[in-house]
């Protein structure tokens, strides 16, 4: 408990996250049905996903490889033998009446990730199948079920209770997001549910030896909500304990509209899942050779990419770090600098592009920006076709419409005016109209130079080449 800056009103929050990640495999975890998002309801359903009598699961080796990749990326232990268990409960979108998961012998154990220089331990990561989807709001009088998601492979990543604040929880989650997207094992899209998060939250006094009673907040589906839900829960628990009452061990739901957590079920009504080893699947041995073959097949990790960017592109550590935080942006950068100036591209990605992404809270591939277009934007700055100021306007335009940079510049006449004759005419007109200022300048009021530059820019709607304007003005005013 060294970091006392995480205390809130003298209370120490203790947080552990369970992150469910949908794996990007061709087929489902135990059936040959396609694993895809966004298809028509119940079109990606095999006999196995329907839980028909007599069907049997067969493990998808691709999902196993992806689990191993995550383990390797977090310096975890990969199981020599992993065993699938059945978690039994009744729900209409769970066709078999049980979920196949891993309880005692998960594929990955004892991993660690570094978040802002602090190590957060991963207790385990296990493979399990997703349930289908119950849809309650489509029809007035009935609920319907879509089984497309039934059997989609999940990797559930369970952290140790090492997290001490809501913002640290978000940073940890972002780190997990970064790892899985770098490994290309998941798209990590929280709004589509391919990454979901449960948070275990308790509070204690810094001097306490044991953790407090925890509440589990289920199914939080954005980074922002993770922070809000945890903060709400911390405040709620502080209120309870400061009123000398007891926090109840329970499962809670976060309501993002009201920004509050609500009780879902207390421990007394907790399900007894009656776990036992799934007899349809034999224990799976994972050989060292197999692990090594997976390791060879692994994509570059964030730190490796950052190092490479520093040495190949000569970026400083900070810039390389910011660009490599998101694999999509890192790849985007590499595309852009094939034709554009490296340092300028880095500056624009880190500054302007990131600002837009953050402002609109979307990821790069959800935006209308593509690498070729963005590269052209940088090139137009470099070759003085447009000024930096105009470039920002062009960026706003291509962000909004996706139009090609050259078309935006042409159609709006945004080209920089570098024609000496044209600028001379403009300058002369301005000097003629402002005789008083010209005289004042010539009699020593140097500061008025800026006034003339401003007038030229105003007259050219900012398109005048600033260097040339300076040069010509000095000549005319001398």
């Amino acid at each position, binding site marked *: 408990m060294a970091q006392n800056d995480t205390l809130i009103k003298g209370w120490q929050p203790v947080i552990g996250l369970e992150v469910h990640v949908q794996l990007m495999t061709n087929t489902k975890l135990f059936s040959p049905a396609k694993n895809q998002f966004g298809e028509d309801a119940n079109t990606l359903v095999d*006999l196995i996903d*329907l*839980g*028909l*009598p*007599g*069907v*049997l*699961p*067969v*493990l998808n080796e691709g999902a196993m490889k992806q689990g191993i990749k995550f383990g390797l990326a977090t310096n975890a232990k990969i199981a020599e033998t992993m065993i699938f268990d*059945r978690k*039994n409960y*009744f729900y*209409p979108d769970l*066709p*078999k*009446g*049980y979920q196949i998961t891993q309880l005692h012998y998960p594929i990955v154990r004892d991993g660690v990730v570094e978040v802002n220089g602090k190590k957060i331990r991963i207790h385990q990561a296990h493979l399990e199948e997703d349930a289908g989807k119950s849809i309650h709001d489509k029809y007035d009088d009935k609920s319907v*079920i879509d089984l497309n998601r039934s059997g989609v492979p999940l990797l559930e990543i369970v952290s140790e209770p090492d997290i001490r604040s809501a913002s640290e929880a978000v940073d940890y989650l972002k780190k997990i997001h970064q790892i899985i997207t770098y490994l290309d094992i998941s798209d990590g899209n929280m709004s589509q549910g391919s990454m979901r998060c449960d948070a275990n939250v308790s509070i204690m006094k810094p001097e306490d030896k044991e953790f407090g009673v925890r509440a589990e907040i289920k199914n939080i589906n954005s980074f922002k909500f993770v922070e809000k839900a945890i903060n709400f829960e911390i405040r709620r628990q502080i209120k309870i304990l400061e009123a000398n009452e007891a926090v109840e061990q329970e499962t809670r739901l976060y309501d993002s509209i009201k920004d509050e957590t609500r009780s879902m079920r207390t421990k007394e009504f907790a399900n*007894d899942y*009656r*776990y*036992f080893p799934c*007899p*349809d*699947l*034999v224990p799976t041995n994972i050989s060292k050779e197999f692990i090594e073959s997976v390791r060879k097949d692994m994509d570059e990790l964030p730190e490796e990419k950052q190092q490479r960017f520093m040495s190949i592109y000569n970026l400083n550590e900070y810039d390389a770090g910011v660009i490599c935080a998101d694999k999509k942006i890192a790849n985007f950068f590499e595309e852009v600098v094939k034709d554009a100036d490296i340092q300028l591209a880095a500056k624009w990605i880190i500054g302007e592009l990131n600002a837009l992404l953050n402002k609109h809270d979307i990821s790069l591939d959800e935006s209308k920006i593509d690498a070729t277009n963005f590269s052209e934007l940088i090139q137009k700055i470099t070759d003085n076709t447009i000024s930096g100021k105009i470039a920002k306007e062009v960026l706003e335009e291509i962000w909004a419409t996706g139009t090609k940079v050259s078309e935006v510049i042409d159609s709006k006449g945004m080209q920089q005016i570098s024609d000496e004759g044209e600028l001379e005419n403009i300058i002369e007109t301005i000097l003629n109209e402002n005789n008083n200022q010209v005289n004042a300048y010539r009699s020593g009021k140097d500061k008025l130079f800026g006034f003339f530059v401003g007038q030229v820019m105003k007259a050219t709607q900012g398109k005048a080449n600033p260097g040339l304007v300076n040069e010509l003005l000095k000549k005319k005013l001398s």
Partner: protein
Amino acid sequence: MNFKELRGKFRAKKVSAKEAVESSLEKIKDDKLNIFINNFEKQALSNAEYIDNNFDDFKDKPLSGVPIAHKDIFCTEGLPTTCGSKMLENFIAPYDATVVKNCFDAGSIMVAKTNMDEFAMGSSNETSYFGAVSNPWNHNLVPGGSSGGAAACVSANLTTISTGTDTGGSIRQPAALCGITGLKPTYGLVSRWGMIAFCSSMDQAGPFSKDAFGCAALLDAMASYDEKDSTSTKRDNINFEKSLSKDFGSLNIGVIKNIEKLGISEDVINAYETSKTVLTGLGHKLIEVDFSELSSGICSYYVIAPAECSSNLSRFDGVKYGYRSEGEKDIANLYMNTRSDGFGDEVKKRILIGTHVLSAGFYDAYYLQAQKVRRMIKVKFEDFFKHVDLIFMPTTLDQAFEKNRKSDDPNRMYKEDLLTIPANLAGLPAISFPNGFKNNLPIGGQLIGKYFGEDLLLNTTNKIQEVTDWHKMTP
């Protein structure tokens, strides 16, 4: 006509598949024993015609031109599959079980699906939603279970072969009570794809026929590695029919020490003693083994099997297929009433037991303990097989019993499986064959073999049947 004769006549073009099917169907229509849940006249005739029209493709197949009845636990595409339950009374499977497909590819024609204890839970065929089956030897008696219909079908000569499944004795016990031969293969030899699960870690499909020859041919058809079943095992070049004529020489056969202490009836013990002399007559050496520790298997079985069953049967919830209690206002009532009405008492009892033994606080004492006993039994068998090639024992404690007699006494009923369960717990192959008669009722003897030792089991049984004729008796 037995299996071998019928197949021979087809191959010699003396009986067409269609004629064989017609003859079978005629007898099935006259069935007074309630052996079948459904028969498929139209499909059977058209499939028979197909086989006749493609005679050359099928003539050398193991089951060429022979009618077969499948236990109604195997899914059959486009046709009802009930598993003996109201829950699946109107269920039409959209796919074929691997066993069903394999048997068709081997040249047999499915004529009907046989009655069984509901979801294969029972030892008398009386838990079937479709009513009890009568024993062909005495209609007041049960045929055994759960594959009661399948055993009675072959015993009454309605077909010469049929398929069954054996979780705790469900092939061997009815084979013994109906006076026919039935084999439970090594766990993993026959694919479980499409076979409705009761206890997945023990369920295994196997053949019924009058004799070892029919069982060998049917097992040749049934056995296959199946990538759709993760517990299926790859075996190369198996040909059980061929192995019948192999000479395995003189064997060491384990026999039960102090058999009188196991509560076995005098008539069954007498038949057992007679069979021992047959075995020595065939040149085998008998070595006594201590079976007493294996009797704890029954307790282990009645924890593990209900545990798996409680989970396996969760899918029958009225939501997707099968019976649904109509007019329910919420999901909890839909579940409750669907399962209360759709399952029979025996099934519900086992679901409750299974749910209990897996519950928090009881898991260690029951389920985990039962798994330890199971492992101990496996080890015990491994010890036996260091000294013997096969183990010989009776199949059942007694002969067929009267209907309704034991249904009220679950412990007595469960004890029915005392001698068959150990092979299921260990996953070993075992065969039951008729080895005596008393009061015009058959008695069964059982050989247990090493893993994937079906060839030796069938070969030894065949040798016994060459010198005895209990398997030729007909009701």
